[in-house]
């Protein structure tokens, strides 16, 4: 799902401390934040 990955890449590059990120909508949009959580955890542990 290249589109979701682009969004995740964008957020990883641009988010700042104190930000609130919400995935909202019906359908599989939850996959964006699900994967984002994994990536943030992975980046924090690295």
């Amino acid at each position, binding site marked *: 799902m290249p589109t979701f990955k682009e*969004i995740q890449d964008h957020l990883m590059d641009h988010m700042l401390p*104190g*930000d609130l*990120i919400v995935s909202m*909508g019906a359908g599989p949009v939850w996959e964006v*934040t*699900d994967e984002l959580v994994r990536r*943030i955890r992975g980046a924090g542990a690295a």
Partner: protein
Amino acid sequence: MPPGTEIVVHSAAIGPQHPEMVAARLQRCEILKYAQMLGRVMSLKHGIAIAGTHGKSTTTAMTAHVLLAAGKDPSYVVGATCAQLGGSARSGAGELFVVEACEYDRSFHNLRPHIGAALNIEEDHLDYYKDLNEIIESFAHFLGRIDPNGVAIISAIDPNCATAVKNIEARVETYGIDVAADWQATGIRRYQGKAHFQVAYKGKKMGRLVLALPGRHNVGNATVAAAIATHCGVAWDQIQSAIETFRGADRRSQLLGQFPHPEFPGDLPVTILDDYGHHPTEIRATLLPCASTIARGGWCAFFSRTSIAARASCWTIFARSFLHADITIVPDIYFVRDSEADRRPSAPRRWCSVCRRTGGMRCTCPRSRRFRII
């Protein structure tokens, strides 16, 4: 299809040509829609059906949670997964059967509950209903099916609910926040992320409730859950402790966590929420408490994937519902039941331009050049 199968239950989305449906007909199985089966099961129990354009999953899950905690051993079917409930459905030995009653496909016309709730009535599912009047008529039919000795609980401030209960036999009780209502919630205060408020029934003070869910709308949902539990004979102190421990259904303002920023771990954390909202009222209701209490100085990013955004006439209303977001990111639109004709104008790029024109907000989609320059 296993031999000996007697009944095949299918969702409204499965058509007659589906291979399992064809096999079911060949085997002369009884074929029922999910909602028909739900009605059949409810007829064996003391039914509680919770309907409304918004809030029905959360309120159904909360009601089931309270009845479980009170030892009523209820059965329930919720339209969302809820970790505290161990999933979305349960078969209990108790008399009570709590279900989320859906108006799509007039599913809820299969139910004959003892207690029925209409939390609110708005335009939704316009691929199925012609207009708001048809939706109100459909709710009126659902509320008319409540046991005449039962009770209908409706919003005190929603004129559509008032219209829908005009000719029903069951007793009608209203709920509301800071307005005259049979079930009245007042004095909401937020303390340590929880809402504290008082509830009165027909002017008599019942006591305080504490709720961990965000948003004013959830205070209304909790008031309805408490009203239903009271009618089921649950003591107020049991209701209080159960409501306070309720953590919400999945994808309903669900807090996925607060995480240290990978590059600035000593600074404020990044907060991530997930929400199912796909109707302007829901989006506004979810984002409003985010804007006022959670986000401090940061920007917010919101992604919307929605079916009814495809309707050009709704775009402006949708765009306004995202006003509390600093940044809105729109991926490709997610289609459920829309026709090919509905899909064309819903390109995210065009949707974004409506958002920008309407709200003056920063809105982007992956295919837009603006996505690169934020």
